[in-house]
């Protein structure tokens, strides 16, 4: 069974004073499977947060359907299966992490024993023990994010919906989030998250969807979406005379000189191999030979430009 299924999901914000009404989401149809990490990509204002808010019952769609585990997303049965981490999570500043989890445990209808069990499990998983009795008011971004994950995991939901979970985190924090998402997938959960950090998305997602101006322009496994052929090849040679560099550069797409040597950018593997052989014959030494394939960022830019041009 699909964990998330939307069909023709559309959201049009009503006209308000000083704000034009707008179609934020336009006939979004997507599916997220069980035990899958799904990256939801798009520029600011593309409709990612609107989709997430509809799935989490914060917004009501103008038309279309949104289901979680086969139930309407707005139903309580669906919300029992959802753990939600908003972008920059906000909690009651005067509560401590222990009190915060106690509060959300009550909202999930957990008994005292179950709430204690949740605290034991989540405080250990997210390293909250040292800050258990400190007020949230003084927390750093990373500490808030850890608490946000703990809140999202109260009640052991099947699906985690994360809105920009890496936003504003330092490299260690981002790594923590990546590892946590993979760990949750290993535990059998599905993770649906939006992010601008495409490098992280490429590392951990099974599938991605790209939203452009409220429309889903692509969805699928990363491996099938990206171009498989080599896009270009970077060849680095050291110890070349200036005259040899000039001669080799004539056959390259571009070149530059750094401390590592001379970098030649070649269009394909054949010309790159030929250049490397010529360079060695001219007395140079091959330092690096790197075929470059399309990355998610390249793909995202390509689809973005195509879709925006089409609209």
């Amino acid at each position, binding site marked *: 069974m699909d964990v998330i299924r939307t069909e023709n999901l559309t959201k049009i914000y009503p006209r308000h004073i000083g704000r034009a009404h707008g179609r934020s989401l336009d006939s979004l149809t997507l599916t997220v499977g069980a035990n899958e990490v799904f990256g939801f990509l798009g520029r600011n204002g593309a409709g990612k947060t609107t989709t997430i*808010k509809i799935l*989490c*019952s*914060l*917004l*009501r769609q103008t038309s279309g359907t949104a289901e979680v585990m086969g139930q309407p997303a707005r139903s*309580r*049965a669906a*919300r*029992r299966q*959802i753990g*939600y981490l*908003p972008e*920059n*999570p*906000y*909690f*009651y500043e*005067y*509560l401590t992490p222990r009190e915060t989890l106690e*509060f*959300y445990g*009550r*909202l*999930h*209808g957990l008994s005292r024993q179950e709430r204690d069990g949740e605290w034991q499990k989540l405080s250990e998983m997210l390293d909250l023990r040292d800050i258990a009795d400190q007020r949230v008011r003084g927390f750093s971004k990373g500490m808030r994010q850890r608490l*946000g994950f703990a*809140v*999202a995991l109260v*009640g052991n939901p099947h699906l985690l919906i994360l809105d920009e979970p890496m936003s504003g985190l330092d490299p260690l924090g981002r790594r923590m989030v990546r590892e946590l998402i993979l760990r949750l997938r290993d535990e059998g959960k599905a993770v649906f998250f939006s992010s601008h950090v495409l490098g992280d998305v490429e590392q951990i997602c099974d599938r991605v969807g790209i939203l452009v101006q409220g429309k889903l322009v692509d969805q699928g496994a990363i491996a099938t979406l990206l171009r498989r052929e080599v896009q270009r090849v970077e060849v680095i040679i050291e110890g070349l005379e200036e005259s040899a560099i000039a001669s080799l550069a004539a056959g390259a797409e571009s070149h530059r000189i750094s401390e590592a040597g001379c970098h030649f950018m070649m269009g394909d593997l054949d010309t790159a191999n030929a250049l490397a052989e010529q360079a060695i014959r001219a007395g140079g030494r091959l330092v690096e030979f790197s075929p470059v394939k399309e990355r998610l960022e390249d793909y995202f830019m390509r689809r973005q430009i195509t879709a925006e041009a089409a609209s």
Partner: protein
Amino acid sequence: MRTLAIARNTFREAVRDKVLYVLLFFAAAAIIGSKALGWVSMGQDIKIIKDISLASISVFGVLIAIFVGTSLVYKEIDKRTIYTIVCCPIHRYEFVLGKYFGLSALLGVVVLVMTGVAAVYVLVMGGELHGVFFLAALLIYAQLLLITAFAVLLSSLTSPILGAIIVFCIFVLGHAVEILRDLPPQLEGTTAASVLATAYYVVPNLTNFDIKAQAANGVAVDPGYVAWVLLYGLVYTAGVLVFAALAFEDKDV
């Protein structure tokens, strides 16, 4: 349990609201200061102390209900704390009721403390206390519960400032329903007359809750009347809360 959890949290939050302490300070000052008015009204000082004490409980209670109540739901949306709450498996009406009961509990404590202070002050000043004094405080609390329901309704619909103005208007009109009913003849047939006539039927008659004069003079009040007013307040409050829950049910947050 879910409503209770939200109510407990609302209570804790409201206790931290600085507005509460400013209003409580002025309320206490008004009760203590009532002695000054007693001096200028020959032989009436205890009556004046009782009257002003109950009026202070009513006015400052209403101000707390309006200023804290009209920001209850709005603040949760503005600070985005509502995001992770509404996503939990709760009914939206449980959230609205939780906010309402949290503030109602706080007002209960406020009325209890202020009534206690006023009662002790009356006794210290050599006065005598009758049951009707406490019945008056009870009806003030019932009135506050009704005003709080309006505040929570407006908090689901609009900004705290506009909400506070509207609830204050309801409070003022609620004490002037007799005027609304007996309009001067020159207004007959005008739009103003139909608006005011509608207001007469929509706005609760808050004068029903006012037995301060009897309490100040130690005149007994029929318990049947008190029970009827409590029932009137309960039904009206429940009705307003239904509207508040409906207003929040489909609200985009």
